[in-house]
């Protein structure tokens, strides 16, 4: 195993920044091509008119998930070296609720608002200003709910441990679930998408 390249010291911090820009360009390019620079397209997700967000996200998750599993299997990628988001159920669920509200009201998530601004969307710029303001408020009020932000800590918990299944089986279940969702999405789009004039 020799990847992740960065963790095996193929290059240093400074080069990693150059890599960051290149990966970021690909990321931003893809988001824009998917139509994520358009708030209406994103928000119509929540009215079953345009299920692009769901389709893109789950396809991406599946591709990256299968890719990492395969590369790990053939001995190229050391999965234990990939950063795993630690689980803090309390703040993550509360944050999820808040972000769902913010998503429908604001029309973007932070990443897509950057792409929207880059293509000249005024509401994208205003959304970013709002997000920066919200983060400032979070930082300023942080001491008030500091204890809550570490509640429900489960360490580097993975779905595999939670369900007691092997990664392959979990991946298979996720793919099944996604296929079901894609199928449902196509039906919903046919039903509600037609209203769009």
């Amino acid at each position, binding site marked *: 195993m020799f990847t992740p390249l960065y963790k095996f010291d193929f290059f240093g911090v400074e080069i990693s920044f150059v890599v960051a*820009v290149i990966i970021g360009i690909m990321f*931003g390019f893809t*988001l824009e091509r998917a139509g994520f620079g358009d708030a209406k397209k994103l928000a119509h997700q929540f009215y079953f008119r345009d299920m*692009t967000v769901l389709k893109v996200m789950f396809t*991406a998750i599946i591709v990256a998930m299968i890719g990492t599993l395969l590369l790990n299997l053939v001995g190229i990628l050391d999965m234990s070296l990939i950063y795993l988001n630690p689980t803090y159920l309390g703040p993550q669920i509360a944050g999820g609720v808040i972000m769902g509200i913010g998503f429908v009201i604001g029309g973007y998530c932070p990443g897509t608002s950057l792409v929207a601004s*880059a293509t*000249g969307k005024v*509401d994208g710029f205003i959304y970013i200003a709002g997000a920066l303001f919200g983060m400032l408020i979070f930082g300023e009020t942080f001491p008030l709910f500091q204890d809550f932000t570490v509640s429900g800590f489960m360490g580097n918990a993975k779905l595999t441990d939670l369900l007691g299944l092997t990664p392959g089986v979990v991946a298979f279940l996720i793919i099944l679930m996604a296929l079901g969702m894609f199928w449902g999405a196509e039906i919903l789009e046919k039903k509600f998408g037609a209203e769009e004039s």
Partner: protein
Amino acid sequence: MQDTKEKYWSPYVAGFVLGLVLLATFVVMGRGLGASGAMMRTVTYVVDTVSPEHVDNNSYFAKYAGGDKNPLSNWLVFEVVGVILGGLLSGLMAGRFKWKTEHGPRITPKGRWAYAFLGGGIMGFGARLALGCTSGQALSGGATLATGSWAFMMVMFASGYVVAYFVRKQWI
């Protein structure tokens, strides 16, 4: 609207490419993608410029910029610079670069701006509480099968669908 829409990639193609980008990030860097972390660092940078003492006294800001640390010297910050460039290039090449405000038929642009600011503010707060946004938690955490990220993702979409009814005038 109709003709520009055709130029978007099919969602499955876009998702496949996005998955490859994410996979490349795992293989090259050993970490996922993100966006809100870079925004937080920008906020911290501004606060640090105005009042370094304030940053050192606040445990949250200090994590990013305590002492001599430069909050902008970070992988995510450079990645976000790339995201902006990538979005710009794609928009230019597809003829979609245009100054305008996206809004539904029943709301004025000014009304949309107010919603955008409010929604952005809520999202910014929530993203810091949830330790990441759609890119950092749902996408990157989802692909690495992190339990908390999946919980976050499910709750976020559920919450969005519940609230959607109340702000429908903005969009449809």
